[in-house]
């Protein structure tokens, strides 16, 4: 089985002269909870639509489960469960009948599975009510139930906590690692930084239709974290560091030297200091949050643009 569940290369989508998505590469490894992070209008949902065959890319290619997606291979999508933007269902049908309808389109699910899916998202009591009477949170829950109905290998959730109350949000955040533990791959699109940081082990950051960063969450955060250095003789230590590759990333603040982006370089910095007869009293990474990384990256693009 291929290691990459999603492999999209050079994806482009234009609407007239507007570039919605420009040259996006997205690789999602099997079994990961992968986050797509970006502000509203950054191209996240358009990318998801291209992955699901709802919009055709102007350039680039999409592979799902190692096979290219095209009009002839839409069967691949039967292995995917998705919620794209606000879940949409037939308004005059009840929640249960909407799931029954999906079961008719893609058979293989029995009435018990529908009941299980509804129960998993706590919608059993409202299952007989028409969809148009549902609150936004209930719609989201039904969307998640529909996504999980056909026991998918890949689950794509686009802003799944949108409209949910704190309890519902917490349940969804707990559900995502459960899905991963069941061996599913999860692609989570969100503009909620804390949500992505909490549940995703890999992340791709979008800005204005382009990918500005991608990788494992811990690497992204770690790679951007600062290293705090304190020694009894800070001037000598700083002078020693000025001769190193970190010279341009140094700054002094509140009785310590900070090295930007060197959060993972503690050992090498320690070796350098010892080589100059300096012994650190404090040498620790000061982690940034994903929020710090996000604003640094997207802010940088904005000022460049």
């Amino acid at each position, binding site marked *: 089985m291929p290691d990459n569940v999603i492999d999209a290369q050079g994806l482009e989508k234009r609407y007239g002269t507007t570039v919605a998505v420009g040259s996006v590469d997205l690789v999602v490894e099997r079994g990961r909870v992968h986050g797509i992070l970006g502000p509203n209008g950054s191209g996240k949902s358009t990318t998801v639509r291209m992955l699901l065959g709802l*919009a055709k890319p102007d350039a680039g290619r999409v592979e799902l489960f190692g096979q290219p997606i095209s*009009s002839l291979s839409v069967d691949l999508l*039967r292995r995917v469960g998705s919620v*794209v933007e606000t879940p949409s*269902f037939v*308004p005059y*049908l009840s929640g249960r009948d909407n799931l029954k309808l999906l079961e*008719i*389109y893609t058979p293989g699910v029995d009435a018990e599975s529908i009941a299980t899916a509804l129960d998993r998202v706590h919608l059993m009591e409202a299952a007989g009510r028409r969809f148009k009477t549902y609150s936004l949170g209930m719609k989201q829950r039904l969307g998640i139930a529909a996504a999980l109905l056909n026991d998918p290998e890949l689950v794509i959730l686009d802003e799944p906590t949108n409209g949910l109350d704190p309890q519902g949000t917490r349940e969804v955040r707990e559900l995502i690692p459960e899905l991963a533990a069941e061996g599913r791959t999860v692609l989570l699109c969100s503009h909620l930084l804390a949500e992505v940081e909490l549940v995703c082990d890999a992340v791709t950051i979008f800005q204005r239709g382009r990918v500005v960063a991608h990788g494992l969450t811990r690497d992204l955060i770690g790679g951007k974290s600062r290293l705090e250095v304190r020694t009894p003789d800070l001037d000598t230590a700083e002078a020693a560091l000025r001769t190193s590759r970190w010279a341009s990333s140094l700054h002094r603040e509140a009785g310590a030297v900070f090295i930007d982006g060197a959060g993972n370089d503690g050992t090498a910095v320690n070796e350098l200091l010892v080589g100059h007869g300096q012994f650190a009293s404090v040498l620790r990474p000061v982690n940034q949050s994903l929020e710090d990384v996000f604003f640094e990256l997207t802010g940088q693009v904005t000022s460049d643009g």
Partner: protein
Amino acid sequence: MAAPDTATIGGSLRTEFRRLGDALRAELFKVTHRRMTYILLGALVGLMVLFYGILWLRIRQGPDRETARAIANWLSLESTMSFQNVIPYGLGLERFFATLVCVIFAGTMMGNEYDWRTVGLVVGRGVRRWHFIFAKLAISLLFTACAVVVGFLAAMAASAWFTHLYGLPYGPMDGVRLWDALASMVRLAFVISPSVVLALLFAVTWRSAGQAVGAALGIYFTEGIFTNLLTNARGWLSHIPEGLVNFNGDAVMRANGRVGNAGDSGAFIFGSGDAPLWRATLIISIWILVAMVLFFWQFQHRDVQE
């Protein structure tokens, strides 16, 4: 977790038919659970009965003048409403109302999928696009057939009541007449079909139910007006309607039979088209085919969500 279905990935013919059947069942599930389906059929019955009722009230008033011509017209109008003439007259009357109802049904059935964004829900689950719209087309045509039958039953009921009231002839009740009734209903469904397919096409073009219904009905009405104007013109202008749906629809409907002198109401119902039946059938078939090809092509090649 669902294992990769290698048999279906191969896309055998049997799998294709099964999935096409699934799409048809799903579409049927939607329309049978939709209140609007029954409201539209109810409205058609109501309109048919109402129209017969209005004509009955008119007939009750007697001839408008005591001239031989006015009396003949009045007697003729009375005759058109008899059960004996229910096939040409009832179906001719139904043509207008059934077109309205069927266009609304088809336009909303397809357009609402965009309005409600449910088209993405289905296509995003691996349902082939052409299965989805084939089911839409098939159910629209099935509804058209149902509407024709239901409307005709309403016309028969109204006409039978009127015939009983005035002691008019019912006409023969044999197999030949039954066959004639069936063939006439098929002709009516055929004449309505271009507007239905056009409503589906416009729904995909504009991704909206309202615009689809508006445009399809707009064309139906304006084409009728232009046809009437151009038929009275001279030279090449008078030949333009021969290539349009309305004129040829009139010609097909004439095969259902004529009702003597049906007076003013007859002129309204039977129209002006008088082309040979084979040519009228051919031209309408071409229009249906063109609209269907564009409908399928557009849905197959355009984004379902922007």
